[in-house]
């Protein structure tokens, strides 16, 4: 969705001009974060606050029978009143299971329809199962969900997801939890160019520059979890990611200088030098 943004010089504050629009929702932050893999709920909250994210993904799992209900609950540290909670269907390998999981999520979140659909292909790579993803997306959209779909970087199937009615397509940069960054920026570029819904990089970001690169390509946002939670200092990395996404977005909007492959171009004038020796 990169192309339609035009940088215009106006007196308006930037944030008003540059909101991230997903379905009916509008956000200031273009960084979405997961809530998994932290040391404890305190660190979870500190990192999420530090990231400046407004949208936070959660997983849906069975309550432990016999669990002490007084135990601190995830949603008490990232309350739905403060954040947009985005339930995912992580762990599901079939459309049907993803649909059931997300229906439970909607019930849990009092009818909120915005969900992250994720149907996996195998437990080893966690690569998306695209046929099941397409099938689940159709069912969920018919059932009133606003579906943000984790997907491969296949431009054709990304367009199918958009045509079905997904409110965002979320291609992987690289495997979930791999931290390898964007392996195929060309495919991501094609998806950005063709899409009319937000394109959000989901999975594979490893460090701040990966997030900046995603935004510079023209992605509308970036979703990450491990890159923050598995950093040595998650709270500092959360802040790094916030700034990297802002930097990458600004660089995209500012329009980078062209690359010159071979010849240096002096930053200082070539005339007006003092009388130099012959060279």
């Amino acid at each position, binding site marked *: 969705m990169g192309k339609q943004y035009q940088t215009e010089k106006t007196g308006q504050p930037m944030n008003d001009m540059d909101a991230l629009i997903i379905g009916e929702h509008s956000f200031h932050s273009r960084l979405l974060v*997961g*809530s*998994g*893999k*932290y040391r404890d709920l305190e660190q*979870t909250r500190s990192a999420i606050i530090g990231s400046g994210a407004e949208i936070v*993904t*959660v*997983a*849906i*799992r*069975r*309550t432990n*029978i*016999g*669990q*002490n*209900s007084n135990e601190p*609950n*995830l*949603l008490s540290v990232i309350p739905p009143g403060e954040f947009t*909670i985005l*339930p*995912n269907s*992580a762990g599901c390998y079939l459309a049907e299971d993803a649909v*059931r*999981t997300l*229906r*439970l*999520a909607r*019930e*849990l*979140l*009092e009818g909120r329809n915005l969900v992250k659909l994720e149907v996996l292909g195998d437990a080893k790579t966690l690569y998306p199962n695209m046929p099941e993803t397409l099938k689940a997306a159709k069912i969920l959209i018919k059932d009133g969900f606003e579906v943000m779909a984790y997907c491969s970087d296949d431009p054709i199937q990304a367009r199918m997801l958009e045509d079905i009615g997904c409110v965002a397509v979320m291609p992987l940069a690289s495997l*979930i939890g791999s931290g390898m960054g964007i392996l195929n920026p060309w495919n991501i570029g094609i998806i950005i160019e063709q899409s009319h819904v937000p394109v959000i990089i989901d*999975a594979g970001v490893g460090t701040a520059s990966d997030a900046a690169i995603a935004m510079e390509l023209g992605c509308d946002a970036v*979703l*990450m*979890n*491990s890159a923050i939670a598995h950093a040595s200092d998650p709270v500092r990395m959360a802040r790094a990611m916030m700034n990297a996404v802002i930097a990458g977005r600004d660089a995209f909007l500012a329009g980078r200088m062209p690359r010159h492959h071979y010849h240096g171009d002096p930053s200082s004038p070539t005339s007006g030098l003092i009388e130099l020796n012959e060279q």
Partner: protein
Amino acid sequence: MNNIRVNGESCKVPGGWRVSDLLLDLGHIGGRIAVERNGEIVPRSDYEQVSLQANDNIEIVSAIGGG
């Protein structure tokens, strides 16, 4: 007593129990949970109406950290 499955484990509950009785028993009252009975969502507003039947398959879920 009825044999039912709750989150994949077999258990026995008294005849006539509603979903709300089960949740109360499990300590889930007031928590942020959702309930599925035999593959169908049980809306929060129906907990006190829906009876548990023999062989019911109940799933009770909550939100946990995930990416």
